[in-house]
């Protein structure tokens, strides 16, 4: 993965596959503490303890289409490489939380990348899932929430020109650090 926004897209696709109807994504840029953290929480089917232990093993997957499962292990590796931490908590039947942190100034920390494109892809590609994206940066909070866009759509499908335009406009408006000020 080239940047963190692609990692986020990948991890949230896991949530969708796990049958989540709500996924919350939080990105926190705390330059004061030299920390960038990502937290993804879903209400999907969760994992048993046995599966959780194997979740970051690249040679473990629950897919039947291939024999490797790289998503979580790639994010774990990216966090480790940037002097950060990685953890997964999961309860069967309740959901899963994936956390990854990075040393903000670390030379090997991947840039955040285009978060807006990630959110767009998730929201339009998964119309039956609700998403909430929170971006915290030095005490400032910006939120994007699909619960709020239903009214504006007024009957138009989410992947219609109108739906796409609405989502893009909201993403632009929520003056969040969508493209990342940290682009290198």
């Amino acid at each position: 993965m080239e940047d963190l926004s692609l990692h986020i897209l990948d991890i949230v696709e896991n949530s969708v596959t796990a049958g989540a109807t709500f996924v919350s994504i939080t990105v926190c840029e705390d330059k004061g503490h030299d920390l960038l953290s990502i937290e993804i929480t879903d209400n999907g089917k969760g994992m048993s303890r046995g599966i959780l232990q194997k979740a970051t093993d690249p040679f473990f997957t629950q897919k039947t289409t291939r024999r490797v499962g790289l998503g979580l292990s790639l994010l774990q590796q990216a966090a480790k490489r940037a002097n950060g931490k990685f953890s997964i908590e999961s309860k069967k039947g309740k959901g899963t939380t994936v956390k990854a942190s990075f040393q903000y100034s670390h030379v090997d920390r991947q840039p955040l990348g285009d978060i807006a494109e990630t959110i767009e892809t998730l929201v339009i590609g998964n119309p039956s899932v609700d998403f909430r994206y929170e971006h915290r940066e030095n005490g400032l909070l910006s939120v994007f929430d699909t619960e709020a866009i239903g009214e504006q759509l007024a009957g138009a499908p989410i992947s219609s020109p109108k739906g796409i335009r609405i989502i893009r406009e909201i993403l632009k408006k929520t003056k969040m650090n969508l493209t990342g000020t940290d682009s290198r």
Partner: protein
Amino acid sequence: MPKIKPEDLAKIKERTRRTLILREGSGRAKVTVHMGTCGIAAGARKIMNTLLRIIEEREIDDIILTTSGCAGLCSHEPMATVEVKGTAPVKYVDLTEKKIEEIFDQHVQKGIIVKEYALGVGSERTE
């Protein structure tokens, strides 16, 4: 049981409607971008973004655009499946932004399969 407020009803209606549109497949064609780890790493988000741009710019409102997981052909990602109503779905492999635009113009809009980008069209030998 807590009382359901009018706002809640609107929310429930909206959620059901969003799900229904997709399930009912009310579009003339459906384009699915494969969004597994392999696809994402190979550039599937760019393919999705190109399609979104085309749909928005050209005001195309009879297409369903969606995403799915890994199809098991990771080395040929990015991939997308085009399904024009009433015809068999076609998988396109090794996509670029240019290729998907061409596929959209030809297959989605005119119904002409772009054979050189398709997976396995006419690959069987009958001799």
